[in-house]
């Protein structure tokens, strides 16, 4: 039985980060893109917690940062969903391919 250490958690969080980035660039549905961003933010939370537990056990900065990241993620999602609802009203779709009026 291997106990999970710092490197395991860092591996998971890096993988989560890049899955989020991949999803953000490939998905065409706005809600799914928003979920990808949540994945990125959660990978950051994992990072902070892991660093706090394994590397800097006598500090609290990482834990507090995680709390604030969760709060900000909620605020961001609320604004984004309000904007997406408005986009749905005007475009009748939440597919980014249909919102292409602005081009160089």
């Amino acid at each position, binding site marked *: 039985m291997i106990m999970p250490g710092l490197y395991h958690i860092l591996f998971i969080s890096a993988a989560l*980060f890049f899955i*989020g980035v991949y999803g*953000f660039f490939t998905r065409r549905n*706005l809600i799914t*893109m*928003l979920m990808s*961003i949540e994945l*990125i*933010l959660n*990978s*950051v939370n994992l*990072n*902070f917690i892991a*660093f706090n537990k394994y*590397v*800097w056990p006598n*500090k609290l*900065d*990482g834990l*507090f*940062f995680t709390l*604030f*990241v969760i709060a*900000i993620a909620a*605020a*961001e999602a609320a*604004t*984004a969903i*309000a*904007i*997406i609802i*408005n*986009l749905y*009203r*005007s*475009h009748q779709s939440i597919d*980014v391919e249909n*919102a*292409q*009026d*602005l*081009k*160089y």
Partner: protein
Amino acid sequence: MNEYLTIMKSELVLTAILFLLLFVKLGSRWKNESTLLMIQLLLLLNFLSGFFFNQNGSLFGGMFHTSALIVFQKNILSLAVYLISLLFADWLKKHEHLTEFFILMLSALLGMFFLLSSGNLLMFFLSLELATIPVAAMANFDLDKKISSESAMKMILSSAFSSGILLFGISLIYGATGTISFAELPALLNGSPLQILAFVFLFTAFAFKLSIVPFHFWTADVYEGAPMATTAFLSVVSKGSVAFIFISTLYTVFKPMDAIWYNMLMILSIATMIMGNLFALRQQSIKRFLAFSSIAQVGFILVGISSNSPEGLSSVIYFVLIYVFSNLAAFGVAAVISSRTGKERIDDYKGLYQTNPFLCWVMALALFSLAGIPPTAGFFGKLFLLTAGASRANYLFIGIAALNMIVSLYYYLRVIRSMFMEKNETPIGKIKPDMSTTLGLIICSAGVVLVGLLSWIYDYIVKLV
């Protein structure tokens, strides 16, 4: 107790105004004209209050700090917001949600104030979010236009993505050094690979906010789709505040990594200037044109930042001050024309001089200043930026920047030519801007001329640095 009042004075004044506006929104049945007049007065008071009772110091264990220089930067931002409330009166008066627009704008400004004063990466991140999320909502304020909601969508997605990258960088910095305080970080940075990776992530997030090439794709779309007041806020206030905090982070926190970020800045600056200029050449919409011109201007700001010297800091602040006046004047004229006639293409401006000489002269002054032609302040701004950048003795870099200024002359003069020289059968009719817009345009034109001629302004900034 007294200390809290004076050190956080700018933020407290702004918060008081925000609360007042919330009550006005809830309680009153005032007409838009009188509400707007009250807001303009409040913003003028906010700007003037920046000059009194300033005290240096830090609060909350170093999380919040302020100095004469930071107060000066905040004053520039307050001035810009006051000018926005004057210049876009035409559009604002017609909007049914006028008060909400200002509530969002002032929340973003509050975020920028905290951003400039932040002494800690947590504070930095929170205030950066406070400074960007309301702007995305502001981009959606032309509620019945399709492009407005599209631009808001692009803005919120790209800013959320960039804040994700920023956070990942911060988490790596925390892992590598064990601290998130700006005061403790410089001593712990030793250029290990993990720290460099973290720095690259942070730099990318800044590049997103400043719309540095290759992270500029959202800029032109958001600028074109958003209402003109939001575009002006985004391109002047938002960009100025991020430039200020970017330069102070690089110069104080990441000073030990100077050799690394100089090369990054140089390459990105050249790419930004060239791409901004090349795309600006072929634009037909005035908003997209100003968007790409602002990207090119950021390239010049990076030249100044790359010097890593006090001259770099003072020249960037001076340039942002000039940029506030000149860019707001250009946006102001475009907004008056757009809200009265709905025309936003450069071709529509043909023959404008026959009908509206005043607007034409203001626009010409602003564009001359953006291009950097001598009697206007823009020339001095660019001169100091390039002189500061030249202190690194990398003359090839400065030469490329100077050549880019010549390219930019072409497209700025193209607009001036179509206003003054080209004929048009159906020119835009005579427009009489209302009092506050005229006042704003006069302040901006005076600023464009006087900031360059009055040398004590630059001397004052140098003394503060």
